[in-house]
């Protein structure tokens, strides 16, 4: 079974997945999307994008927290011309992937050592994602170097860019 069959996904790679899904359905809108949202540097060519899409497709059980949904709207600007279609596409993606959206409350983290310490350092959104990944015994996929560094290379967290480059234990080129 793939290591990525069950994954908690951070906001950054989730939004990249939604953007690429939208571009797949509306290729002519690519420039409009990428004007407002620059795809991360690890998706720098079509081959890297294709590998990322394969990675996301392989995830059979995709989990996020409700905080991530809120952050999507606040962090990323969608041009008004495509706003409706983009979010319709996003909801379809959620439905087809049966994305499991969980509510991890601040109170749950407060009552959970050491997560309350993680909240104080990394904030409630990142702490919620880590809490969910640990409770579900699966990986948190992120592209946030700071979170990765702060978690001191915990085996529960992987950087998307390292996964795409095959830089994880047991995978060599």
């Amino acid at each position: 079974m793939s290591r990525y069959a069950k994954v908690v996904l951070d906001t950054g790679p989730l939004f990249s997945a939604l953007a690429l899904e939208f571009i797949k359905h509306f290729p002519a809108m690519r420039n409009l999307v990428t004007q407002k949202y620059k795809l991360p540097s690890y998706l720098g060519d079509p081959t890297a994008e294709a590998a990322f899409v394969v990675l996301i497709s392989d995830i059979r059980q995709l989990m996020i927290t409700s905080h991530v949904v809120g952050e999507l709207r606040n962090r990323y600007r969608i041009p008004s011309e495509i706003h409706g279609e983009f979010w319709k596409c996003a909801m379809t993606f959620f439905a087809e992937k049966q994305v499991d959206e969980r509510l991890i409350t601040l109170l749950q983290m407060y009552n959970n050592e050491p997560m309350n310490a993680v909240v104080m350092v990394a904030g409630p959104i990142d702490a919620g994602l880590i809490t969910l990944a640990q409770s579900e015994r699966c990986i948190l996929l992120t592209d946030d170097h700071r979170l990765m560094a702060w978690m001191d290379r915990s085996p529960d967290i992987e950087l998307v860019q390292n996964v795409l480059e095959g830089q994880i234990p047991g995978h060599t080129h």
Partner: protein
Amino acid sequence: MSARKRSTSSRKRTVRVGERIVRAWFDTVINPLLQKLKWEQTRLQAKNWTWRFQFKHLESIQPVRNMLPDQMLDNLEQFLNFHPAIREDIKFHDDQRTKLLVACQNLQQHLEESDDLRQLYSRFTSPDSLHELGTRLEDIFGSYKKPEEHISLIAEYIVNNTGELPSYYTTAPFWNKYRQNFLSLLDTPPINQHNRLTLPGEQLLKLSKRLAQLLRGSREHLSIEYDMPYVTSSAIAE
């Protein structure tokens, strides 16, 4: 002739550019091209030509104009009007890319027709082999249903010198176990006679590096002449 000046032959008057045009060149032409060329060089160094049999193209080794969004192409043309040496190098790059594309197409075709490849495929997809892998043929090749498509996909992997695949590829267990057997076809007659990718690939890598060097040189010259940083803080904030 200075990069910022170009004589118009009809009126013998020097055309000059200013800071705004130079800033636009940095942001929409030179910096994006340098990023794309860096990615291209990474692929070429790994001898991953990104050949795709379905579309008969090189997915990420592209003509230079395809490296930029359409709305930046007018800026590219203007930049090249003032930098004819770079325009020429772009042509060399694109011509060499075409040679690499043709070489990939030829190798793909010969692999697909190869009895050796078909024998390996039959052996490694036998019921015993699949049982040993703990998988089914349809689970390995996903949406590719027909054996001919499986052969084409394996040929594509061979053309691209594909390394070990990460676990999120359905073909990973199959390819990772048997890749050395498949890749050895490149060094074995008769396929080795049709494996003519190394030279065009190396040539393209040289041309890609040279083009990047010319672009960096231009950027440095313009940066100093116009007191223009390579990247602005607003570009970094994006």
